């Protein structure tokens, strides 16, 4: 039996009061009116033994009432040892440190290291400990398995050393995803380990909790009941302003000297609202006049910033006036103007609106930032296509002459891109050659009817730009004449789209280093509505760009995004810090903002990598938001200092669960009722007529 408020037991001393009061002899309180006192003289009462006994019972009841009251106020409870309450409770603890770009602000990182160190040092030796870092992805600094292999005494020192060795990256924050992965890592153990592992798990999150941390990933996550989240916020004074591109990638399609739209955001609570934008070349001095921008705290402004004349293709726009400058710069790579040749191998004239060439030439008109020439001089007997340089795309609408066919094969094998149209004159022999199948087995029967595209692989680069909900409606494009490509007729070709009948509509073949895209119809107006649909121009532009990836990325790449590269040969990519990396097909090492230059291809090209726009939203998220997402928030770990507080909380919980004061209060009421009855009975015992009348 324990008491939650034992001081109230002192109230039992009040039990002396009834004893004293019962010892004090008092004048009788009752009054009797009598006709005459002529026969009477004062005779003070002397307690009889019997009445004393009755009063003793009353006194005992009154003492009992006071004792019960004091007892109830002391809130007694039966203390039961709850497992893992106060003893050397072992926990499986993960310290999750934010290393995103926002941690580069001011002294955020030193503070984060200090908090992580404190969290690690507060752990008991018996705890299982791991340290993870997160930004866009979550990575272990000290995994559970590694920590378990360490000497328990050295475990915490190692963990602290790993944190101190880490540094914030330029990547964006994916806090929600990091928490999910942390929970998974807490549970990631073998069945044998699970038996021994502590049941209580804890994630100590050291982060600036920025709003742009994409916490919404927790929305569908079912937070485990045995994992507690302890938040150690990195708090910084002041607020942040950020600069981001309004339309990333726009530079590739704009003319070089058009003004560029950027967004200046000012976080709530910032004491600044006047900023300036300054242009400069990459690593160069500021150029042109500063552009003043007024943005009240908590708001954003879109600003059209006109670059000064003479600025090169690698431009930097910087926001001045903000204390935290990690997100105050955007790099804009303006690709140089270029001319791309598209070879058309067909028999129709350029001015024939019933043919395919007519629409092909018009599809590439007015392409921003580049000039596309459609060359269609190939005729029977021609030995080579007229392009002086390597074309970006070869469109085959009719069977080309044999010399051209061999040139086409070598073009594709060396990494070129060809588009085969299976129109009224399907180039069966060329297709068979490119697909490396027997022409005699390749049956391409023309079928008339009415079809739509029924199944499209939007993951394919050709259709990826149309994957959005507003652009993926291809049902208005009808096909009336198609070639029925039998399954397996083209070997290991990838079917990118099918007609609603299930017949392949768009097929991609790989040949050597290049690719061949086969359209099982044509865009001639008599064959289909493709040329007259809104999808035609972007589809061809995407196809043309896929022949030379990377060259026109401009500034659409954010930190951590993979960059597709053309060709199968490795490219040497120079990073902003001057280091060089080799990449083939995809370059993934976009780990810092600035300009990247790829050499090894002809011509060399540059692209800019910028910070994730969300990373500038540094205002902290409230703790309640975590609770709304279902996280079980806890206070700090129960350090020895807090043991008494924790013990008190547990005692309070036990007491409130048992509620022993209730039966005590009921007993008290019973005693009071009994006391009232007895007292009333003692007073009104055997009432005489006179007493009854006068009372």
């Amino acid at each position: 039996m324990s008491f939650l408020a034992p001081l109230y037991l002192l109230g039992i001393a009040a039990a002396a009061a009834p004893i004293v009061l019962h010892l004090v002899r008092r004048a009788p309180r009752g009054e009797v009116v009598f006709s005459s006192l002529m026969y009477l003289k004062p005779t003070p009462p002397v307690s009889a033994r019997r009445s004393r006994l009755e009063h003793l019972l009353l006194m005992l009841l009154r003492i009992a009432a006071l004792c019960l009251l004091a007892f109830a106020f002391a809130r007694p409870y039966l203390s039961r040892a709850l497992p893992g309450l106060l003893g050397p409770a072992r926990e499986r603890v993960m310290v999750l440190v934010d290393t995103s770009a926002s941690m580069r602000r001011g002294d955020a990182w030193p503070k984060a290291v200090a908090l992580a160190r404190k969290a690690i040092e507060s752990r008991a030796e018996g705890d299982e400990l791991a340290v993870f870092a997160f930004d866009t992805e979550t990575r272990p600094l000290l995994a559970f398995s590694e920590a378990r292999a360490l000497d328990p005494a050295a475990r915490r020192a190692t963990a602290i050393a790993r944190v101190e060795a880490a540094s914030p990256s330029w990547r964006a924050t994916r806090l929600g995803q990091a928490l999910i992965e942390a929970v998974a890592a807490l549970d990631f153990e073998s069945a044998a380990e699970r038996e021994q592992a502590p049941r209580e798990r804890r994630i100590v999150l050291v982060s600036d909790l920025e709003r742009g941390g994409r916490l919404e990933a927790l929305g569908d996550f079912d937070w485990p009941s045995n994992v507690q989240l302890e938040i150690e916020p990195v708090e910084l004074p002041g607020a942040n302003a950020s600069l981001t591109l309004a339309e990333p990638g726009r530079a590739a399609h704009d003319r070089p000297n058009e003004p560029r739209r950027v967004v200046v955001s000012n976080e709530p609570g910032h004491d600044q609202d006047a900023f300036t934008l300054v242009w400069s070349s990459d690593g160069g001095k500021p150029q042109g006049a500063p552009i003043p921008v007024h943005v009240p705290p908590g708001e954003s402004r879109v600003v059209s910033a006109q670059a000064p004349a003479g600025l090169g293709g690698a431009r930097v726009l910087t926001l001045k006036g903000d204390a935290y400058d990690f997100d105050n710069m955007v790099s804009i790579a303006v690709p140089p103007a270029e001319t791309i040749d598209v070879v058309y191998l067909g028999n129709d004239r350029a001015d024939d609106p019933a043919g395919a060439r007519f629409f092909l030439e018009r599809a590439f008109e007015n392409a921003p930032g580049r000039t596309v020439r459609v060359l269609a001089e190939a005729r029977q007997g021609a030995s080579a296509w007229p392009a002086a340089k390597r074309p970006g795309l070869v469109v085959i609408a009719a069977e080309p002459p044999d010399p051209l066919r061999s040139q086409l094969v070598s073009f594709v094998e060396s990494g070129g891109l060809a588009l085969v149209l299976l129109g009224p004159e399907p180039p069966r022999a060329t297709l068979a050659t490119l697909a490396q199948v027997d022409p005699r087995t390749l049956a391409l029967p023309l079928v008339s009817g009415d079809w739509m595209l029924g199944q499209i692989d939007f993951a394919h680069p050709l259709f990826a730009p149309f994957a959005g909900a507003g652009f993926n409606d291809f049902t208005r494009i009808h096909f009336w004449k198609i070639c029925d490509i039998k399954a397996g007729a083209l070997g290991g070709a990838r079917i990118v789209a099918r007609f609603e009948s299930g017949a392949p509509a768009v097929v991609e073949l790989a040949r050597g280093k290049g690719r061949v895209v086969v359209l099982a119809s044509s865009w001639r107006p008599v064959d289909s509505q493709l040329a007259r649909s809104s999808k035609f121009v972007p589809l061809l532009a995407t196809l043309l760009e896929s022949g030379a990836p990377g060259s026109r990325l401009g500034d659409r790449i954010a930190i951590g995004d993979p960059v597709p590269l053309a060709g199968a040969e490795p490219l040497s990519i120079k990073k902003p810090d001057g280091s060089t990396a080799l990449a083939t097909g995809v370059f993934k090492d976009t780990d810092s903002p600035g300009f990247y230059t790829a050499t090894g291809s002809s011509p060399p090209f540059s692209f800019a990598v910028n910070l994730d726009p969300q990373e500038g939203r540094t205002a902290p998220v409230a703790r309640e938001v975590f609770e709304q997402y279902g996280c079980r928030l806890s206070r700090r770990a129960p350090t020895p200092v807090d043991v008494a507080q924790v013990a008190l909380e547990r005692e309070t919980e036990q007491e409130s669960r048992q509620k022993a004061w209730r039966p005590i209060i009921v007993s008290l009421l019973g005693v009071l009722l009994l006391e009232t009855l007895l007292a009333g009975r003692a007073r009104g015992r055997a009432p005489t007529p006179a007493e009854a009348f006068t009372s």
Partner: protein
Amino acid sequence: MSTGEPHAGRAEHASEPVAAASGWIDPVALSRIKNLQIRARVAVEGFVRGIHKSPFHGFSVEFSEYRQYSPGDDPRYLDWRLYARSDRHYIKRFEDETNLRTYLVLDSSRSMTYGSGPLKKCDYARTAAATLAYFLTTQRDAVGLALFDERIVEFIPPRYRPGQLRRIMGVLEREPAGRATDLGTPLEQVAATARKRGLVIILSDLLAPTGLLANRLGALRARGHEVLLLRILDPAEITFPFRDAARFRDVESGREIILDPARARAEYMKRFTEHAAELKRLAVELGIDHAQISTADPLEVVLFQLLGARARRGRTTGRGHAKPGAMR
């Protein structure tokens, strides 16, 4: 009929259960009859009527005796026929029934308001006075009333005439408002007022020293009055049944004393008995009918015994002949 005066039928009906049970009317039940006159009539119907003989000789049909005329006699009463026959003057005397002149002297002091039960002493006394007045009126006797506490506060001379009974009832229905009891002064006033001989019925609790009482009662007796002393007491005053210690307050003076009844009872009973014995001795000495009545006793039984005893004794005015003990 929740309010207003109950009629005779209802009064009889109200008294029926008690009367049926014991043969007599319970005083409490009787006191429930609001109208005092009806209450009195109900009580009167319960006892035998008494007959009073006039102590005077006067006009009557019943001849008593002749007496020789002496100067100063009223010549109207000369028997002229006898004078014609015998030439002597004789006065003709008759024995005639005449009005009894009755004075009801009622104590209205504060102590009469005491009652340990539902019935107060004053209620009982008023009912008794009203009953006697009604009874005497039906006997064609003259009835008067004197209400006193420390002095006479109301006095109605005895008369037999229409309206007299109603006046008496009106006075009796008033609540007593006096304070202390002092029999001396009121009895002196009664003696001074009642010049003609008659019956003086004193209804009081006599909770007062007997000092002057003897002189005043003696003065009444000396004037030829018959005196009937009815001492009306509450049962609690007779037995003192209290048990628990309490503050006892005098209803007249307001004086309070702290009392343990268990210890005080013996002393009380001793002094009470002594006082009662003193009163009794006084009554015997003066030839006064004396009765002690408890408010628990049925009224008509008391009056029956009282008046019955008087009727049996006849008109006795001599000292030392009263038998008060016969009434109880």
